[in-house]
């Protein structure tokens, strides 16, 4: 009854002219979507009608590797924003196509195929977990797409599994072992290695066994611990005997578990304690607390302003990264090597694309040739320092930082120049 007035003649204009009908919703909705498609994105306004380079990136945004994947994306986004702000690459903007590999090699393979076939990316910068990098390497090679590996440390990526399209602009285990072994053998001659029992941990273990031996030391035992083992005590309890130091090769929360439980069992007091810098990344330090005091490690990046890292461009990069990281974590972590290597990998790609005048995937071979032997100079693009992508195996050798941790901070004790970490190439593309 209350609605009767709508049917009267005098009310027709008022009611029907403004009535929201399904037809109108569809009409206005379609118009709005069309308008949104036509409105230029901010970068399109800056670059006119230039088509963006589509850079794919596979990152673990969920699952076991998600914590590192989140910081890796910060580095990548920082580089992309900076490139676009400074005029893009060859006058064209960069658009990131980030996919979540869910920390699973099987999912990663599917997503890689999607990036190649459906998204039609121009190049790839990414890869965090070594088993995923290894699983996806053949896809990039078959599709003839540049793969700038940005975190994976497995040795074989640039040795037995090397291919013409994959590049690594940061270090790998043999180079770190060359740099660190002299310090380790000064600390003690006999070592026991506890390692994450998967591709990266195993290849890193092998590198340290070889180089500790080369420097007059000896690895008297090794203990492999599966990834994600929540209680390492049954493994660590078995570590005993006559040796000088315990060397750990872990990353992420496994690093927290190792340090906490080795400390609780008295191992870090009984033996000298050293290891891969991934254990003491800034995202782990809060949880480990003072249990890591005295830990000696090697890393390609530590968030300090000491030695060669006390530069204006590193200060600027550090501040921006810290600000961005605070947005994804309220505790405000310091930048880590995952932020650094993603940032630098995309910048290296940019230089290669500019040098080769890369336009489409048809120019990939020219890009390969431009990246081979490319010198990356320390500066705003490469705040970590100088490095060269070796032509023979596409492996770079950056400077390494040997440091100790105490009181929740890093103390740089030695910088090893990249040239002193070089190991002979295991494959040779230039032949």
């Amino acid at each position, binding site marked *: 009854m209350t609605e009767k007035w709508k049917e009267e003649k005098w009310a027709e204009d008022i009611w029907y002219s403004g009535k929201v009908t399904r037809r109108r919703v569809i009409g206005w909705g379609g118009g709005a979507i069309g308008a949104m498609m036509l409105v230029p994105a901010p970068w399109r306004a800056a670059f006119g009608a230039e088509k963006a380079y589509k850079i794919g990136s596979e990152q673990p945004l969920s699952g076991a590797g998600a914590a590192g994947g989140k910081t890796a994306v910060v580095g990548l986004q920082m580089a992309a924003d900076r490139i676009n702000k400074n005029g893009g690459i060859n006058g064209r903007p960069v658009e990131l196509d980030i996919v979540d590999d869910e920390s699973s090699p099987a999912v990663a393979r599917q997503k890689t195929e999607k990036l190649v076939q459906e998204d039609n990316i121009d190049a790839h910068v990414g890869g965090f977990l070594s088993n995923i990098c290894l699983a996806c390497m053949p896809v990039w090679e078959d599709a003839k797409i540049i793969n700038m590996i940005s975190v994976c440390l497995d040795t074989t990526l640039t040795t037995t599994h090397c291919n013409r399209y994959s590049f690594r602009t940061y270090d790998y285990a043999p180079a770190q072992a060359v740099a660190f072994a002299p310090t380790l053998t000064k600390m003690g001659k006999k070592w026991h290695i506890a390692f994450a029992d998967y591709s990266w941990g195993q290849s890193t273990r092998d590198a340290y066994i070889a180089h500790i031996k080369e420097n007059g030391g000896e690895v008297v035992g090794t203990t492999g*611990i599966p990834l994600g083992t929540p209680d390492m005590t049954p493994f660590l309890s078995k570590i005993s005997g006559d040796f000088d130091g315990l060397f750990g090769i872990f990353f992420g929360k496994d690093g927290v578990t190792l340090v906490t439980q080795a400390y609780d069992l008295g191992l870090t007091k009984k033996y000298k304690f050293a290891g891969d810098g991934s254990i003491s990344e800034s995202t782990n330090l809060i949880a480990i*607390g003072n249990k890591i005091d005295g830990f000696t490690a090697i890393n390609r990046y530590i968030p300090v302003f000491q030695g060669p890292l006390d530069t204006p461009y590193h200060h600027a990069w550090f501040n921006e990264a810290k600000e961005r990281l605070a947005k994804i974590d309220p505790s405000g972590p310091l930048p880590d090597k995952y932020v650094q290597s993603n940032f630098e990998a995309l910048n290296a790609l940019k230089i290669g694309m500019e040098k080769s005048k890369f336009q489409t995937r048809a120019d990939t071979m020219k890009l390969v040739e431009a990246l081979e032997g490319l010198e990356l100079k320390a500066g705003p693009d490469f705040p970590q320092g100088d490095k060269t992508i070796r032509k023979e195996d596409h492996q770079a050798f950056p400077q390494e930082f040997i440091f100790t941790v105490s009181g929740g901070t890093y103390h740089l004790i030695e910088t090893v120049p990249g040239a002193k970490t070089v190991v002979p190439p295991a494959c040779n593309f230039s032949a």
Partner: protein
Amino acid sequence: MGALGQFFHAIPFDLIIIQTVNGIVTGMILALIASGLTLIFGIMDVVNFAHGELFMLGAYIGFVVFVTTGSFWLALIGASLIVAILGAAMQIVALRPLIGRDPLNTILATFGISLVLQNYALWQFGPVVRKIPEPISSQFTLFYLQYPWYRILITVLSAAIIGGFWLYLKYGKLGVWIRATAQDRVMAQAMGIPVPWVYTGVFAIGAAMAAASGVLFAPMVGVSHTMGLDWVLKAFIVVVVGGMGNLAGSIVAAIFISLLEAYATIWVDPSQAVIVSFVVLILTLLFRPTGLFVATPR
């Protein structure tokens, strides 16, 4: 000396005692997690894939309470209560509408909840691993090791929580209702027991037990969004080996499997020792599919 004498001489007794202690400690933590899981299955027929995330959520809430109050014990109690309330809400909203439907529905629902909770934790707390310090940090000498008293405390507390729950199940009003519902839910409802609320209560208790174990375990590994994943697989193995829904069976299976793994590390490479639990699982499924501690119907 005979072959037997040589064999006994070769057994490293110090390592056996150390691994026995390790096995019991790990087993009790696992038992606390698995008891919540088996309780929920036994009463509700729900395979709770979100149990690991309730464990993780308990640790995160414990961390927040610890930062606010500075008390580990308040963190333990607060996290258990808050997660119990969240668990009850989760059961009412997501699982109660699925009662009576195909079990696959509840599996998918709890799996979905686990993904939501895991990604929520990563979004809310970020990638940095958090710390809840242990309430006691002293150690005692166990042969060549310094063994933390905190691990012994965890064992005692886990046993106390499980024991307290068992007593409540036996003598408490809700406990009697739970047992009645487990025996015959139709008859229980006919006798006036509010079965849907019993379900909610059971889910809340299971969630609280997961949260308590999360807080207890956090000082040993830190708090991260994936910490539940590492335990829940093993908890499922324990529940299957102990007999789905059999509380006592799960506790015995947790200690049994943990001891087996710990002993295996003495003779085989520790990374191969974890295979032991899978071997036990396969053998159980082959020869006693209802669980080691439940009679197999013939």
